[in-house]
């Protein structure tokens, strides 16, 4: 998405020429993306977005425009799509009821399928699969719980292990290409507060 990364890509011209007119329909078929075509590009979502307010490179209106224009690979491979804070302010204020936050989630799901998962997704899945929670619990935690008279909790991952094995989420990752790098963290423009 950044100018630098475009320059590094020797297929950049092809990308621009090879717009995918079916991309928008692919999104409308994904849960959350159904209302994409209603967008009138009014900019209300960007105006209310807390992320856009501190870093204009994350612009929900522009992301929707790229989706409508069929900039498939450029959008799916962009680290920017993972910057949404899922605050739902855009959902509440969009005059066209596009459900922008859900739309972002739809784009993220498609990106994951096509080899551009969120950073550290694989680790997250493994922890959930074997601990049934994102923060594993051990005796140390339970000792601390006891001090505040809280009951001790045991991890019971059997059922979640089966669910994760059966939904196919791991196969999606196995077939995925190299994940995108997370370079945005170090690149926030210093002139914005």
């Amino acid at each position, binding site marked *: 998405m950044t100018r630098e990364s475009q320059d590094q890509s020797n297929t950049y011209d092809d990308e621009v020429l090879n717009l995918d007119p079916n991309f928008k329909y692919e999104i409308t078929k*994904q*849960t*959350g993306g159904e209302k994409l075509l209603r967008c009138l590009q009014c900019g209300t979502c960007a105006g209310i977005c*807390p*992320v856009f*307010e*501190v*870093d204009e490179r*994350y612009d929900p209106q522009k992301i929707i425009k790229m989706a409508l224009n069929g900039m498939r690979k450029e959008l799916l491979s962009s*680290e920017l799509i993972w*910057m*949404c*804070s*899922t*605050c*739902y*302010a855009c*959902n*509440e204020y969009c005059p066209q009821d596009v*459900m922008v*936050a859900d739309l972002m*989630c739809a784009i*993220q*799901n498609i990106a*994951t399928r096509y080899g551009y*998962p*969120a*950073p550290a*997704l694989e680790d*997250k*899945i493994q922890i*959930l699969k074997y601990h*049934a*929670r*994102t*923060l594993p*619990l051990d005796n140390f*935690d339970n000792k*601390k*719980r006891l001090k*505040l*008279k*809280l009951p001790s*909790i045991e991890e*019971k991952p059997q*059922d*979640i292990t*089966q*669910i*994760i094995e*059966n*939904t*196919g*989420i791991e196969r*999606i990752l196995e077939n995925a290409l190299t994940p995108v790098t*997370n370079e945005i*963290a*170090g690149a*926030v423009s210093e002139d914005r*507060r």
Partner: protein
Amino acid sequence: MKYASFLGCTLPSRAHNYEASARLVGNKFGIELVDIFDFNCCGLPLKSAHFETYLAIAADNLAIAEAKGLPLVVFCNGCFGALSEANEHLKHNAKDRKMVNELLKPLGKEFNQGVKIIHFSRVLYEDVGIQRIKEEIVRDLKGIRIAPHYGCHYFRPGEVHENDENPKNPTSLDMLIEVTGATSISYEDMLQCCASPVLGTSEKIAVRIGKKKLDHIKAAGADLMVIHCPLCSIMYDQYQPTIEKQFNVEYKIPVLYYTQLLGLAMDFDPTELGLKKNKVKVNDLLAKIENIS
């Protein structure tokens, strides 16, 4: 008042102060929290990666509550949003309901009608009620200025929550605060997000968003901030010293869970309310409260 208690991932390991204070004040009002140790993660962490897996993990929890025939009480705004959305989605989408039930069948579970899901603050607000809470207030917090932070998923998106909270202008937390005698103040961009979901992808962006709220709260002259979500706590309490250091500013704004605040007004012991676990020190605040009467 009996509820299946859904703790999620963060409370059991990182928010003992929230859990302990909620249990204490809840007990006083006859809120019976049934611990169900078969609950696991709400599914939210996988929603952006694979919607079906998120739905199935959420449905697993919802099916457990449904089988117990109890409403589900949730403490974390993230879990509250994720479970409410999955509950609504599965009630209305027969195809996905079939998909999750095929996954749940070998586990002996089933999602049928869905369940009633309620945030703990809403249990206090709706089921206990402001009048009843008032009867238990023994220490009037008159003169204390409090900045409420609702947290996005407590009230947005409006469609997935079965309550009367206005998604453009929520009021329940203000009313819960004011019943203690304290003043609930408004401040710039009051409904803005804590941005803790962005901490994992871009800490730099996230702390900038977090800082703005702390600036607004400081400018409004609040004695403390009140929250009711362990994820919001990560940004405003855990990260507050980091933000102070990084931007060379000073806030020292205590961040209390609502149940801790209510517990103080009900004269519970600060240590039992887990106040020693709050990262931003609360000593000055406690002294100020001590001097009220």
